[in-house]
């Protein structure tokens, strides 16, 4: 979708190249994160795509067409651009700011109005409150959301985003990143995304391009950068804790043991007890007939009892959704001092996570079946 071919930029009056012989391809519908130390050429590389900066040599293709063969105004109108310093027009209301490109393209009023409201809702700002505000009446985070909304106004297939969440505190940044990723899941834009925060890069990028002093050092998936850094610079850049960073990258559903052993509320207590004794299990999960998690039973609690398991269930309060990342899951386990976390999707039991699977993930020894521990905990229905 966007292809850089041997792109070099030397600013007039400077000897060193700000961008040096870069080959890069951003696939359609993917987020490509440009990352690197300050001054490494991220902004320069990005701004050459919409011709705000002329290339010195090499060529750039958008959608298969050389950008130099396109009309510059049309090119820019077809690319959403979020600039590093937000750059909202101070004399325009939020609504007019968002409507900038639609107005350039002469959309009719009603369509613009509807689109503005739609976008405000998308970035989670109430149109009634924010539509008529001026940029100076916004917080930094709100302004950045408007900046993003403005770039998305005409639904351009390609977006250039230069540190779009840079001015936001860490907590709200996480929220915005999550929001943005869930939007991206639906809209599937081709995005070049600049950041200098490695966490953000790992979280947002389908691919990461690590630059240093104008050169492309490594280009690949976040996974590849973390597991097989090509040189010391990459190692240093992603940090000594890169093994831990993989926890950021992986979702609970990627690491959990699927189909864990369970019993059902209609099972006989003594049969379950017998099974637990055989397998030396202290605890066992209990589901109803639709596999909704009801809770668990403790081996000791059911020793002398008869009847149905359903009457002996203890509720399970700590669970995790398969969509969360492993770091959150681990932090939950550590803060509640538990070795196992039950994975529940919409109340349905889908898997379990224990410290050993997590350790395996970090150490990369884990396989699809859940490794050595799969035998004990996977297996589904027991009776």
């Amino acid at each position: 979708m966007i292809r850089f071919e041997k792109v070099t930029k030397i600013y007039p009056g400077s000897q060193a190249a700000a961008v040096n012989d870069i080959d890069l391809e951003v696939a359609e519908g993917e987020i490509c994160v440009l990352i690197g130390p300050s001054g490494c050429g991220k902004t320069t590389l990005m701004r050459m795509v919409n011709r705000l900066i002329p290339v010195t040599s090499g060529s750039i293709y958008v959608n298969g067409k050389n950008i130099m063969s396109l009309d510059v105004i049309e090119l820019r109108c077809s690319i959403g651009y979020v600039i590093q310093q937000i750059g909202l027009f101070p004399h325009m209301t939020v609504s007019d700011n968002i409507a900038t490109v639609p107005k350039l393209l002469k959309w009719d009023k009603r369509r613009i109005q509807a689109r503005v409201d739609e976008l405000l809702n998308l970035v989670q700002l109430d149109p009634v409150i924010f539509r008529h505000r001026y940029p100076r009446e916004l917080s930094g985070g709100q302004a950045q959301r408007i900046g993003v909304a403005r770039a998305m106004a005409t639904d351009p297939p390609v977006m250039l985003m230069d540190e779009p969440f840079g001015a936001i505190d860490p907590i709200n940044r996480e929220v915005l990143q999550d929001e943005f990723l869930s939007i991206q899941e639906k809209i599937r834009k081709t995005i070049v995304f600049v950041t200098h925060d490695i966490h953000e890069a790992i979280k947002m990028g389908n691919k990461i391009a690590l630059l240093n002093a104008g050169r492309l050092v490594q280009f690949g998936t976040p996974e590849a950068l973390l597991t097989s850094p090509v040189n010391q610079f990459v190692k240093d850049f992603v940090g000594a804790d890169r093994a831990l960073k993989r926890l950021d990258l992986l979702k609970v559903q990627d690491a959990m043991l699927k189909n864990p052993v369970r019993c059902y509320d209609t099972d006989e207590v003594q049969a379950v007890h017998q099974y637990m004794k055989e397998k030396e299990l202290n605890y066992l999960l209990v589901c109803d007939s639709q596999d909704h998690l009801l809770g668990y039973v403790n081996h000791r609690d059911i020793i002398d009892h008869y009847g149905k398991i359903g009457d002996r269930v203890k509720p399970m309060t700590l669970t995790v959704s398969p969509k969360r990342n492993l770091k959150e899951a681990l932090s939950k386990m550590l803060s509640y001092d538990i070795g196992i976390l039950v994975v529940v999707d919409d109340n349905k039991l889908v898997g379990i996570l224990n410290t050993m699977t997590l350790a395996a993930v970090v150490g990369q020894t884990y396989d699809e079946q859940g490794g050595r521990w799969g035998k004990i905990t996977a297996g589904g229905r027991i009776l």
Partner: protein
Amino acid sequence: MKANTTSSSRSRGWVMAGLILAFATGGYFQHLGFFDFAVNNPAEIWKLFLEHIYLVVISSTISVSIGVPLGILLTRDFMRRYRNWILNILGICQTVPSLAVIAIAMTYIGIGKKTAIFALVIYGLLPIIRNSVAGLAGIDPVIIDAGRGMGMNPAQLLFRVELPNALYIILAGIRTSTVINVGTAAMSFLVGGGGLGDLIFSGISMVDPGYMLAGAVPTCILAIFFNWFLGKVEFWAVSPGLSFSSRRDVSP
């Protein structure tokens, strides 16, 4: 909000004090018989008053329609290198006294309204050019970049982004120029341009305060009026989103 009410009540206080003072002086002059001329010749004063307004409006309009485009031109990229040179030269020109400008104009164009207007235009030009340049050059380059990046052509950039943002400073220049112009226009009389200067200069040469005041007081009123009116224009024309604007209470 609070600060606003107190500051506006304070300025109302000043207006009251000024009015009382004006009435007191007026009463004193009346007592000395200074207003006899004005009372006896309203038609003549009215005619000169209109003439004065005509001179000011025409010359300021021409100054604006030359000055603002010139300011725009000077802030285009290709002019950047020459900008300060040109502004310096204009600054030096401005130090030539208005009287000299009028005199020089007269030697070339002769006497009459045309000469007066020509001189007033020249003299009123600099504050407008200077403010237009300052306003346009002072715009945060980031927002211009944003406009370009979103696909605005140079004209759209100028009219939708640059001018609205520079408007406050440009209008302030126009206001200064026009108010100065009201005073300078009094000298039109010297080249046969008419206006209230007629009364002022005749009054001076005849040592007749009544005559002189009949010209000076309306000139002052005119200056105050233009200042107030253009202030209102600024107030309504400048976007409330800009920090200069006092049109909207903004929680910081």
